[in-house]
C-alpha cells in the first residue's frame, strides 16, 4: 500500500508517557501522506473520518498507533477486502509496560511505528473467494452420535446424507431397551429414543439414508466435496459441504484378557454380548439357558491397562449401570455385583448410580480381579477390595465391561503404506526398493482400513492422535480435526458415554454447518474465523520440494504428478505454515508475507555497539503468546525495553530468512514464543511450535559456522494463562544476550 496515513492516539495515557511530537515527526520522516493526533482515536467520529479518508482514496492505508490489535476490534472494524489498516500497540506494548518519559520507552514506541509502517506498506487487500457452496452435510455412521448430528443439521435447514455400513441404522445401542437418563430426576432408565429418531429421519424428505453402504471416495474441499458411495443399488455420487464422521467404536477383544476367563467359559460374556442377549430373549446363562441367579460385572476389562487400552473408555461405567437396571427390572430376584476400580459417572449420572445402588440385590465393590475360574459355575477372585482383603465371589454369569476401540483409520499411516508400496516398485536403486519394502510390510496392517477415502495428499482419512482417536485439544477446540470441514463425533472422536455422544453429534453438526456458512462467505473457520485472505503461490519459482504439501497440518495442498502444490483454498486455515516452510519464499497472504515481516525487521533501528542498547526481536504467536503479553501489560507488568515484538500467525509460519535477516542486521537475539507442543499440544495449528523447533534446530549449525552463539536464538512454549511468565522470559533472555555481548555482525 502507498500513501499511508498515520493516526496517533494520545488517550489511555499514551500522550502522557510518550512525546507525541517525536512520533509525528517520525511519521513525516517515513513519508506518511498524513499524520493526525487524536486524544481518543476510537471515538466513532474519528473512526468515521479515517474511513472516509480511505474511501475517498486520500490515503491508501491507515496505521493506527493506539492500542493492541486485540483491543477495540469493534470500534476499529474495517472491511479487509476494501481497506488496508495496520495497528501499532503503543498502549499495551509501550506505555502500560514501560516507564513514562524515558528515552528507551520513546525509542520503543518509535520502532513499533516504523515496523507497523513498513508492514502496512507491504500488504495488499484480500480478494474474497466467491465459490458455489454445497449445503449438504454428509454424516458417515448411523449410530446415536451420527443420527443426532443428522437431526441437528436437518433442523438447521441443511440437506443431510447419512451413510451406514450396517444393514440398519442405530448402531450399537439400536436394540437396547432403556438408555441412561439424560434429564431430571436422572434416577431411572429412559425409553430408548433411537427407534423414534430413526423413524423421524427416514421420513424426513431432506435426509437421504444409505444403509449397507460405504464411502468409495471423497474429493474436493469444504463446501465442494464430491462424494462417491457404494450402495446396494450401485454407485451413488453426490455433493456435500461438510462431513461428520461418527463411525463409533468396537469392543476390545475380550479373548486377549486371559485371566478374566472369556475364552475358557461360555458363561463369561462381554457387555455388548449381554446387550444382545437382553434384546433377544432375555437373561440366560449361555451354558444351560437357565436364568443366572448371581451376575458379576467386571469393570475396566481392558481399559486403563497399559497392556491393553491405556485410556478410560468412559462408557463402561454408565453402560453397566444401564445393564444392571435392566436386569433388575426384569428379574428383581437376581443378585448383581459390580466390581469396579473407580465408578465414573460424570455429572448428574451420579444420581443414576445412586438409584441403581439402592436396588435390592445390587452390590457395588471396588476391587481388582485376580482371576475368573470355573466353567459352568464361576468364581471371581478379587484382591484389594474395600473389605481390605481378598475374596471370592460366586457367579453364574460374568459380564466383562470391555473398553472401546475407535473405528478410526489412521490416514497418515495408510499414506505411508501406499507411498512405500509405490517406492518398493519404482524406487531408483535396489537399496531404496528394499527399504521401501520393509516400510510397506511394517504398515501393511493399515491397508484396507480406509473409511472416508479422502483424496488428500496426506492420506485418505483423518489423522489420529493418541490411542487412535481423531481428537483435538479438548479445551481449546473440542471439535476441530486436522481436516477442515470434517468433524469427528461420538466414540470415534473420544471415549464417551451415550449421553455425551449425543451432545457430541449435535456439536459436530453445528461445526459442520458453521463451516459451510464460512465457506459460502470465503472465510476461514477456526481459529482465524472471518479471515478472507488466501495464500498465493508464485508457482513459476516452485522447486517441487514438497515441504509445504507435507507440512500443512490440514492437508490443504494436494500435489500434481510432478509434486507441484495444488491449493484447495477452502481447506486452508491461514496459519502460514506453508509460508514458513517454503525455501523459495513463494507463498504469501495478502496481509501476511515473508516480505512484510522481513521489512518490519529491516525497519527496526539497531543502535551502534557503542550505544550499549542491544536489540531483541520477539516473534510472538498471536494465539497464546500475544494475548498473554497483553494481559501482562494490562496488569502493568514490565519487561526489557530492548525487545521488539512482531506478532505472527503461528510459530510454524516462521521463515528462516527472518532469523538470518535479523542476525545479519546486527540484532542481538531472536526469541520465538509459541504454544505448547507434544501430546497435549495447544497449538491452534497442531504442529507450529514443533516445526519451528525443527527449523531452528537446522539453523543452529549455520550459526555455529558463522561463529554466532546458538544461545542468541531461543524458542519458548507458553500457554495463554502463563502471562505472568512472559516478562520473566523476556527479561531472562535479555540478560542472556547482554552476557553474550553485542552481535559481532553489527555494523556490517
Amino acid at each position, binding site marked *: 500500500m502507498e500513501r499511508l496515513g498515520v493516526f496517533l492516539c494520545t488517550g489511555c495515557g499514551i500522550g502522557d508517557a510518550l512525546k507525541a511530537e517525536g512520533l509525528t515527526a517520525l511519521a513525516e520522516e517515513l513519508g506518511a501522506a498524513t499524520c493526525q493526533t487524536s486524544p481518543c482515536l476510537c471515538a466513532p467520529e474519528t473512526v468515521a473520518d479515517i474511513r472516509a479518508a480511505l474511501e475517498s482514496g486520500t490515503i491508501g492505508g491507515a496505521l493506527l498507533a493506539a492500542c493492541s490489535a486485540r483491543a477495540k476490534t469493534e470500534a476499529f472494524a474495517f472491511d479487509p477486502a476494501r481497506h488496508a489498516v495496520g495497528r501499532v500497540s503503543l498502549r499495551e506494548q509501550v506505555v502500560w509496560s514501560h516507564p513514562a518519559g524515558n528515552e528507551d520507552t520513546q525509542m520503543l514506541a518509535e520502532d513499533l511505528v516504523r515496523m507497523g509502517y513498513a508492514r502496512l506498506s507491504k500488504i495488499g487487500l484480500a480478494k474474497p473467494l466467491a465459490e458455489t457452496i454445497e449445503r449438504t452435510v454428509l454424516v458417515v455412521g448411523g449410530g446415536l452420535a451420527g443420527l443426532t448430528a443428522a437431526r441437528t443439521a436437518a433442523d438447521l435447514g441443511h440437506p443431510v446424507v447419512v451413510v451406514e455400513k450396517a444393514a440398519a441404522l442405530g448402531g450399537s445401542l439400536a436394540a437396547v431397551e432403556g438408555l441412561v437418563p439424560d434429564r431430571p430426576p436422572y434416577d431411572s432408565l429412559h425409553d430408548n429414543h433411537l427407534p423414534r429418531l430413526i423413524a423421524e429421519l427416514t421420513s424426513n424428505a431432506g435426509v437421504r439414508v444409505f444403509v449397507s453402504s460405504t464411502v468409495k471416495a471423497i474429493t474436493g474441499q469444504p463446501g465442494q466435496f464430491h462424494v462417491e458411495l457404494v450402495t446396494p443399488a450401485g454407485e451413488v455420487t453426490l455433493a456435500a459441504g461438510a462431513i461428520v464422521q461418527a463411525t463409533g467404536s468396537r469392543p476390545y477383544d475380550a479373548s486377549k484378557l486371559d485371566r478374566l476367563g472369556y475364552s475358557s467359559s461360555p458363561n463369561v460374556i462381554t457387555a455388548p454380548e449381554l446387550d444382545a442377549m437382553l434384546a433377544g430373549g432375555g437373561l440366560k446363562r449361555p451354558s444351560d439357558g437357565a436364568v443366572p441367579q448371581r451376575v458379576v460385572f467386571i469393570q475396566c476389562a481392558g481399559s486403563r491397562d497399559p497392556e491393553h487400552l491405556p485410556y478410560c473408555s468412559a462408557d463402561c461405567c454408565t453402560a453397566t449401570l444401564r445393564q444392571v437396571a435392566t436386569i433388575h427390572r426384569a428379574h428383581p430376584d437376581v*443378585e448383581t455385583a459390580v466390581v469396579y476400580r473407580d465408578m465414573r459417572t460424570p455429572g448428574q449420572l451420579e444420581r443414576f448410580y*445412586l438409584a441403581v*445402588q*439402592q436396588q*435390592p440385590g445390587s452390590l*457395588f465393590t*471396588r476391587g481388582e480381579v485376580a482371576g475368573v475360574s470355573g466353567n459352568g459355575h464361576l*468364581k471371581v*477372585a478379587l484382591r484389594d477390595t474395600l473389605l481390605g*482383603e481378598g475374596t471370592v465371589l460366586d457367579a453364574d454369569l460374568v459380564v466383562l465391561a470391555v473398553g472401546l476401540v475407535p473405528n478410526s483409520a489412521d490416514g497418515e499411516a495408510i499414506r505411508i503404506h501406499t507411498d512405500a508400496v509405490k517406492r518398493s516398485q519404482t524406487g531408483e536403486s535396489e537399496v531404496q526398493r528394499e527399504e521401501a519394502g520393509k516400510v510397506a510390510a511394517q504398515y501393511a496392517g493399515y491397508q484396507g482400513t480406509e473409511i472416508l477415502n479422502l483424496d488428500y495428499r496426506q492420506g485418505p482419512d483423518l489423522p489420529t492422535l493418541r490411542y487412535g482417536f481423531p481428537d483435538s485439544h479438548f479445551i481449546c477446540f473440542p471439535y476441530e480435526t486436522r481436516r477442515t470441514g470434517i468433524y469427528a463425533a461420538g466414540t470415534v472422536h473420544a471415549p464417551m458415554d451415550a449421553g455425551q455422544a449425543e451432545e457430541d453429534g449435535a456439536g459436530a453438526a453445528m461445526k459442520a454447518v458453521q463451516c459451510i456458512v464460512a465457506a459460502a462467505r470465503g472465510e476461514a473457520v477456526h481459529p482465524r474465523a472471518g479471515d478472507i485472505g488466501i495464500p498465493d503461490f508464485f508457482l513459476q519459482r516452485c522447486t517441487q520440494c514438497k515441504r509445504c504439501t507435507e507440512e500443512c497440518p490440514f492437508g490443504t495442498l494436494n500435489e500434481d504428478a510432478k509434486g507441484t502444490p495444488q491449493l484447495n483454498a477452502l481447506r486452508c486455515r491461514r496459519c502460514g505454515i506453508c509460508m514458513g516452510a517454503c525455501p523459495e519464499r513463494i507463498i504469501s497472504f495478502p496481509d501476511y508475507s515473508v516480505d512484510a515481516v522481513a521489512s518490519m525487521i529491516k525497519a527496526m533501528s539497531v543502535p551502534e555497539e557503542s550505544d550499549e542498547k542491544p536489540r531483541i526481536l520477539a516473534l510472538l504467536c498471536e494465539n497464546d503468546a500475544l494475548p498473554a503479553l497483553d494481559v501482562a501489560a494490562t496488569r502493568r507488568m514490565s519487561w526489557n525495553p530492548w525487545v521488539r515484538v512482531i506478532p505472527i500467525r503461528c510459530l510454524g509460519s516462521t521463515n528462516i530468512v527472518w532469523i538470518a535477516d535479523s542476525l545479519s542486521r546486527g540484532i542481538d537475539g531472536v526469541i520465538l514464543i509459541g504454544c505448547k507442543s507434544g501430546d497435549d499440544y495447544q497449538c491452534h495449528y497442531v504442529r507450529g511450535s514443533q516445526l519451528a523447533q525443527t527449523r531452528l534446530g537446522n539453523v543452529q549449525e549455520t550459526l555455529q559456522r558463522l561463529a554466532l552463539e546458538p544461545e542468541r536464538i531461543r524458542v519458548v512454549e507458553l500457554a495463554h494463562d502463563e502471562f505472568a511468565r512472559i516478562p520473566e522470559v523476556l527479561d531472562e533472555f535479555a540478560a542472556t544476550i547482554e552476557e553474550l555481548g553485542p552481535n559481532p555482525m553489527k555494523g556490517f
Partner: protein
Amino acid sequence: MAAIPTLLPSHDFREALRRRGGEAASRCYQCATCSGVCELAPDEAPFPRRLMLWAQWGLADRLAADPAVWLCHQCNDCTVHCPRDAKPGDVVQVIRALVIEKLAFPGFLGRLVGAARSSWPLLVGLPIAFWVVLLAATGHLAVPAGLPQNWAFEQLVPHLLIYSVFFPAAGWAMLAAWVSGRRFWGLLTANSPGKGSFLAGLAPALGEVATHKRFGTCGAAKPREFGHLTLMWGFVGAAVTSGLLIVGIYIQHLAMPLALTHPYKILGNLSAVLLVIGAGVLVANRLGGGVKAGASTAFDTYFLTVVVLVITTGVLSEVARLSLTAEFALAVYIAHLGLVLCLFLTFPYSKFAHLLYRSLAMVHERGSQAQAPSA
C-alpha cells in the same frame, strides 16, 4: 494364611436390614466421611465406614463380632455429614438390633421381639394378662374390704406372689443374657488380642458406664447423654430401693407402707424423679431432635415406650395409693407389674440388651488396651 473366603453377599441379611429401617446402607460409596467426623472411632479400627460396607455385603457374622457396633452412641454426626445420605447412625442402630436378634437365646424369642413392629401387642399384653389371670386365680383381683386409710400394696398383692413371678423371670432373663453374653464374648475374643482380659477391662468399663464419659464425647448428643445418664441412675436407684426393701421387710421388720420421710422411701422417690426426668428428656429429644435424633425404628420405639409406661404406671401407682381410690390404684399397679414383667422377660431381646452388649464391648476394648504392650 487361611484360604480366601468365598463371599455370598447375604440376601437375607440385606433384606432384614432393609425391612428394619437400614435400607440407606446401600447408598454408601465408602468415602469415609463418617469415620472422619466420628469422635469415638478409634484410629486403628475406625467406624462406621466398615460397618456400612459389611452391611452392604450382608456379612452378619462380622457385624456380630465387631465391638464397634456397640462403641457407637449414635450422636448421628455421621448421618448429618454423610454426602450421600446413607444415614450411618441409623444403619448402625439397626445393625445393633439385628445383632441382638442374631445372638438371642433362644432364637425364636429374639425374632419375636425383633418383630416388635407387629408383635408388640403380644409382648405387652401377655404379661399384663398373665398378672390379671394370676391375681384372679389367687383371689386378689378385687380390693379387699376394710382397707385402712394408710394401706400398702402388699395388702392388695402379696409379696410372695410378686417374688414367685419376678425371681424366676429375672432368673430366666439372667440365664438368657448369660448365654447371649457368652456367645458375644466368644465372638469378640475369637479374632482379637484382648482374649482373657475380662477382669482387666471390667473396672474401667464400669467407670465409663457410670459416668457416661464416652457418651459425652459423642458430638452434639448432650441432651441425650443427660437423659440417658439420669434414666440409668434412676433405674439403679429403683433397683437398690427394691433390694433395701427386702432387707427392710425381712430383717428390719419395718411396717409397710413406709413413711414418706423414711430414707428408703426418699431413695425410692428420688429414683422415680430421676426416671421421670430422664425418660422425659429422651422422649422430647426423640420427638424434636430431627436428623440428630436418628430414625425411630419400631424396635426402638417399642423399648422406649415400655420404659416410659413402666415409669408412668409406677409413679401413678404411688400417687393413686396416696390420693386416689384403691380400685384405681390396683388397676394401675397390675399394669405396672405386667409392664415390669415384660421389661424383665424381653431384656435379652429388646433394645434393653444394649446394657449387656455395650458393657461387654467396652470391657473388651478396655481389656485389649490394658493388654496391649506400651509403646
